[in-house]
């Protein structure tokens, strides 16, 4: 008979046997409403928990007590769930969130970013890894309150004078008295911004060394400026090295 040799039939029959056996053996195991089963696994869990705390297995009477307690807890838990007590509860929500976050954090910290990921992060956030540009400069100040309506004229004359005098112009009597220095040695752009304000810093960052330029306004008045030296900020790492400090710090920033 061909039918007897048909693998599909074998499959169906075998399947039926397995299902029947499973239904037979587990007929008492499925928790029906109103029934609580303490399985081997649960029992083992209870015993292990006790042993961890007390450094010995529970005695018979202790175990009975623990099981009783488990049953009570399970009953209360099911009852509470069926009444919907888990809903709109701050503590339950917070605990679930915490569990999920633990899970996610754990996963995130375990995955090592690939070189490609780090490289694209570096390119996207280059500013984070750039050292600041610095400037050395001289400046001459004109006080608008002293100069009044002649300010524009005085600015033009001062600029021309300074351009004639060149890089080593004697500034002892140039411009107006001013509390800030005329000569600034290597100063970061952030420090220039702090001292003179944003407009001045932006102007300075457009200048190349070697000529008197201006006028530029600050919060104090106007200035003629000579950049003696400028150092562009540079990227501390352009390529992702396979190991070492830049990679480590990049990894840290990336992970956060």
């Amino acid at each position, binding site marked *: 008979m061909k039918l007897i040799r048909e693998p599909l039939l074998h499959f169906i029959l075998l399947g039926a046997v397995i299902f029947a056996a499973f239904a037979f053996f587990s007929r008492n195991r499925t928790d029906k409403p109103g029934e609580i089963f303490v399985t081997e696994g649960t029992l083992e869990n209870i015993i292990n928990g006790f042993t961890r705390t007390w450094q010995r297995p529970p005695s018979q009477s202790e175990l009975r007590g623990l099981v009783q307690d488990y049953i009570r807890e399970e009953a209360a838990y099911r009852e509470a769930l069926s009444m919907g007590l888990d809903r709109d509860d701050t503590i339950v929500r917070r605990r679930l969130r915490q569990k999920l976050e633990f899970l996610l954090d754990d996963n995130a910290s375990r995955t090592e970013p690939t070189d490609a990921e780090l490289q694209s992060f570096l390119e996207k956030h280059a500013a984070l890894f750039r050292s600041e540009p610095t400037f050395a400069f001289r400046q001459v100040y004109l006080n*608008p309150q002293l100069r009044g309506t002649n300010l524009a004229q005085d600015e033009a004359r001062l600029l021309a004078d300074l351009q004639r005098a060149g890089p080593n112009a004697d500034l002892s009597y140039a411009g107006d*008295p001013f509390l800030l*220095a*005329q000569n600034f040695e290597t100063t970061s752009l*952030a420090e220039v911004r702090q001292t003179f304000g944003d407009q001045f810093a932006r102007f300075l960052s457009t200048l190349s060394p070697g000529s008197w330029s201006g006028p530029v306004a600050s*919060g104090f*008045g106007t200035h003629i400026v000579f950049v003696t030296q400028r150092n562009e900020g540079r990227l501390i790492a352009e390529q992702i090295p396979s190991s070492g400090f830049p990679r480590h710090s990049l990894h840290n920033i990336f992970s956060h």
Partner: protein
Amino acid sequence: MRGHKIAATSVVILGLLVALSFPAQAFAQEPPPPAQDLEKVFPKKPPYSPYANRHFPERVYWGDTHLHTSFSMDAGAFGCRLTPRDAYRFAKGYEITASSGQPARLSRPLDFLVVADHSDGFGFFPLLFNGDPKITADPQGRRWYEMLQNGQGAAVAIDIVTSFGKGAISKAILPVPGTVAYQGAWQEVIKSADEANDPGRFTAFIGYEWTSNTGGNNLHRNIIFRDDGSRARLIEPYTTQKPLGSDNPRDLWKWMSGYEEKTGGHVLAIAHNGNLSNGRMFPIIESFTGKPIDREYAETRALRERLYEVTQIKGDGEAHPFLSPNDEFANYERWDKGNLDLSEKKKPEMLEFEYARAALRNGLKQEQELGINPYKFGMIGSTDAHTGLAAIDEDNYWGKFTTSEPSPQRATHPLIKTENGTIMGWEETASGYAGVWATENTREALFDAMQRKEVYATTGPRMVVRFFGGWDFENRDASSRNPAVVGYTKGVPMGGDLSNAPTGKSPSFLVAALKDPIGANLDRIQVIKGWLDSKGETHEKIYDVVWGGDRKPDPKTGKLPPVGDTVDVPNATYTNTIGASELIKVWKDPEFDPAQRAFYYVRVLEIPTPRWTAYDAKYYGITMPPEVPMKGQERAYTSPIWYTPGK
């Protein structure tokens, strides 16, 4: 050139001094070589570079010496969740999320910061909030933790703060020195500071606040370390609760000496809020003994407390109108209803021992009697914010507590309320910062500048203020292109001393101020003089030295007319059309008596600008009650220069 002549003269003088100070018999050293040989070592001519041999401070560094984070029990209880790490990050200019959930950022980074959390109960709140097992194992800790988790944070906060005040916190969970919890918190503070410290760019000091507050009377001091964690880790902060700590400043000073002896490091202490001490901050009679202060007190205080925090969120402490009735600017951001917790009302006779100017005056008197001046302090401002945010610009004010971070209600909610009175939210003062003239931005340089008092206070704006005193300043020094060079060459900077007046000479002062580059113009510079007369009475007088605009003092009263007012309150704006961007002048004391002790300090006033309450009203579209001030004149106070008659 003038500058060169001065420098040349001083080199010759230096040469002479060096030569004179080598009397062979006084030292067991070699006899001096002939003068012409010495001249080769000390050249007559100054170096070509005018910048060589010139290492005085050229830049003022801005910071806050007094900021609390969630590590302070009260800050944590009132909702602060930011840590010392967050606080340093914010001070460096990064945008962060405040505890109230709003994005916050400074207009400009600060140059330095001291996180100064209360040493009593240090680090308690982060442990509680995170449900640390040590806390939740204790019944009281468990109860608080569960209340927190149930959203009863406010009730917990009140319970904790009152229990702490009564000493009713369970011993098992109270972080006191010696416990693991306490040491953990201190290590974390040290680590945060050491990691944030970036020499040359940003200084993160290790520090804490010693919060002596018996009876609600504020005797608080901030402790600042010059050192890094390798030394600070060897000790634990000093607390006020017995038996480990004490509420008496004398015991704190002993602790400070103990630290220095044990580790070879250095610490300094800065007191604040005399206005909430009810007559105890600058005592003549010590509140702890009822006896007059003695020489030991004066000596130790002068050594340990070289600075005073004169302005902060809980009011301005320079001068009080009751003590200085002739000072039209004394009534500034006044907090004088009582002590810190308003458990005791203020009485007028307490004021003399609370305000900086009165203390500087009493110091002269004490010096006459004890031979040493206990109140010879320089002045700085700081925030005392309990938010982790050192943000006190009027247009960017982040409040005293997390509960007073920006909101439409913060101005009209009471901050403190007892049967003795109420302090409303709007009374908070958006103030102040510390300006430090240091040679570089490092812990060492800033600390040393603080110790020599070359510092000043502002109520927020970052104006540059120079103040030099000497005997030879001339009017034309004020028109020098680089006044600082003249100042350091011919005189002493703020915080310095003058003595031995040359016959017939009065002290002269070079005073200069430059407005905040993004702030308001200046109204005027004043010199405030205090002195002790031959009968042992102290006096004060205020001189308007230089001002913006072409105003003339009233010929009868001598009073300078007000600068004017451009504030548009509804729009919270002003214009720099009045005042001056820079003021500079040489001033000579017209009433100098070489036999009388005296001090001189500078007060710089800005033109009127909108107060934080005006910015709040504009942003939230609310109307403030009529009693709420909406504008003010921000200011700076320098450390004094003292004159002491020669012997």
